[in-house]
């Protein structure tokens, strides 16, 4: 191979690999993540699983940026947690808050968490995962009747109603099964 074609080859390689990455995250972010962990890191903290998971799906910390968790996981805020009292004792709150802040979307190297971090870096940090622009966009094309109008789903908040591996932090399209719509393909 002649030397002058080398830069062209390198450039085309760069274009090839950076294209998909550029769509949701910066090239530098992509480059800085050699492990390319996919999805969202699963919950490995028993206190989190127990305390959050006793009332609802134990949403992974990587589903929201640290600014959101800071607002949510505050003693005062938990006294009215989306309408319910979810107060924690001081020890449990300390563990849970630390776990959230260490593994929040903006601290995670997992690919989907990075996309959430990117989508929430400007503006007011959302309190609901369903308000994250990236999450909204991903569910945009699903008709209302399959979520709200579906008695076994009811809301986008119930991740594990359709994402069969949500508890492992996997939200991949291939693992989606919408109840009462067995034939639906994205």
């Amino acid at each position, binding site marked *: 191979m002649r030397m002058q074609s080398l830069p062209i080859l390198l450039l085309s390689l760069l274009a090839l690999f950076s294209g998909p990455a550029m769509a949701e995250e910066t090239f530098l972010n992509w480059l800085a993540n050699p492990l390319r962990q996919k999805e969202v890191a699963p919950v490995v903290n028993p206190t989190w699983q127990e305390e959050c998971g*006793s*009332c609802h*799906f134990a949403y992974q910390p990587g589903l929201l940026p640290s600014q959101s968790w800071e607002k949510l996981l505050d003693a005062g805020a938990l006294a009215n947690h989306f*309408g*319910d*009292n*979810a*107060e924690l*004792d001081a020890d449990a709150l300390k563990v849970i808050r630390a776990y959230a802040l260490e593994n929040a979307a903006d601290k995670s190297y997992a690919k989907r968490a990075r996309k959430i971090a990117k989508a929430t870096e400007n503006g007011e940090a959302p309190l609901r995962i369903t308000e994250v622009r990236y999450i909204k966009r991903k569910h945009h094309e699903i008709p209302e009747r399959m979520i709200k109008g579906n008695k076994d789903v*009811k809301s986008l908040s119930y991740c594990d109603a359709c994402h069969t591996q949500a508890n492992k932090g996997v939200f991949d399209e291939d693992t989606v099964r919408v109840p009462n719509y067995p034939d639906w393909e994205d």
Partner: protein
Amino acid sequence: MKNGMRKIIALLGVCGLLFSTIAAATPESDVLLQKFWAEGAGAANPEKGRTDWAREVMVKDEKLSCSTCHTTNLAQEGKHHTTGKTIGPMSMRTNPERYTSVKKMEKWFKRNCLDVLGRECSAQEKTDFLTFLLTQ
């Protein structure tokens, strides 16, 4: 001999009675009941607990009772009214983990009274609820 038999039967009876009271309590539930008593609760009234369990109260534009989520068949699972999350049965018979942690019982009494009644429950109310639940 006949007298001896009677004594044994009586002893068995006493043992049975003892066991039946143990069956409707856990060491942890006893600790909690002692606490309620120290806080001023009178004699337990499990029947009142049963009635209050299903009584609906209007809180935050929503009619709620304990049974909204836990149902009135306590041997069965319940369901959180907003999140749809499955709640383990309240009955010790079908859920042996129940009433084995004072901390947990106190946590849920506080949260659920605030959510369902809009206020914390009195020591008397908690005594009535707990003694009702323990018989289920």
